[in-house]
């Protein structure tokens, strides 16, 4: 395997994994598990930006997809769901 082939191969792996996880997010019933799968999809998606040589977009996409979106979703689920269990 040549060193030139490596980024192409990694792009294929990352896009396959993020598509795979995106389908599972849609099918999942438990909301917390869906958020965690979304997080994994976000990590692989941002790795795609890294491999396309855009570190600026990588640093922008990491907080948005890995950090803030799951955080706000966790806060919202906690606000709505625990009343039902009480």
């Amino acid at each position, binding site marked *: 395997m040549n060193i030139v082939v490596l980024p192409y191969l990694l792009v294929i792996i990352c896009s396959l994994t993020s598509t795979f996880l995106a*389908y599972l997010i849609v*099918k999942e019933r438990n909301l917390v598990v869906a958020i965690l799968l979304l997080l994994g999809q976000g990590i692989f998606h941002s790795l795609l930006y890294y491999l396309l*040589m855009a570190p*600026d977009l990588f640093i922008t996409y990491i907080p948005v997809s890995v950090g*803030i979106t799951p955080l706000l979703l966790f806060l*919202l689920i906690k606000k709505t769901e625990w009343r039902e269990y009480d």
Partner: protein
Amino acid sequence: MIKRDVLVAFSLSLLVLSISLIIWLEGYIRIATPIISSLGESYLYYSYNPWYSNYTSFSLNVVSAIIWDYRGFDTFLETTVLMASIIAIYTLLRGFEEKVFLQPKGLSTITKTATKIVIPLIIAYALAIATHGQLTPGGGFQGGATLAVISSLIIAVYSLEFLYYMGYRSKRLVVIRGLCLIGLIIVAITPLLIGFILNTKSYIFQNMSKEDSFISMPSFLFDAPLAGSIFFYNVFELLIVFTGLTTALMLLSLRDVELKKAFEVREVYE
């Protein structure tokens, strides 16, 4: 998780692979080729070029040169977008009050100590990302989002009350955010004001001197490239993003006792 779902997802990803292979074999997609289009070449050529000082913006990072110099007005309107969502949260939760003495619990002592050690490191790194936005990848938004880790960690590990002890109130943060937006506008119209006083031609969002106007922002601090207004824009953007995200987090994690009045207001409206 059913096994059938996993199989369907895997076949779906294989479908995507085959479609992308077809497009790739047609020759539409290239990853990081050394061949650059003429438009990209002109950006690379002019973003840091001391010999053509009428066209350059003295920024080693081409992306921040494009974001804050070539399309500065666009980016300025983008920064005001987050304000709209914060106003939406305020209108939903109107009538809340921030109470201080509720006996916070927080997480265990080990986590508290680890957070205490790491917080100065995060502050230093976020400031480095923002103020070196013209040299290395990064900029105002990235620095502010990295700084927002601190407020989210404090809310979870200590409690919301710790932010109140430190003097953070959501209304104060919104006021700081508005002041920083005004600061962005002031930096943008400074060349215009100087041109008005000196009675020469000048432009709004002007960074370096142009062919027909000699006014320019400071391009070097001692021997480090400062890239004129890009540095000031990055610092203001850092504060804007940090205060905006912290306000959203604080408002969404309000305790039930503090929201009692808001619920009463909603019942009156209903």
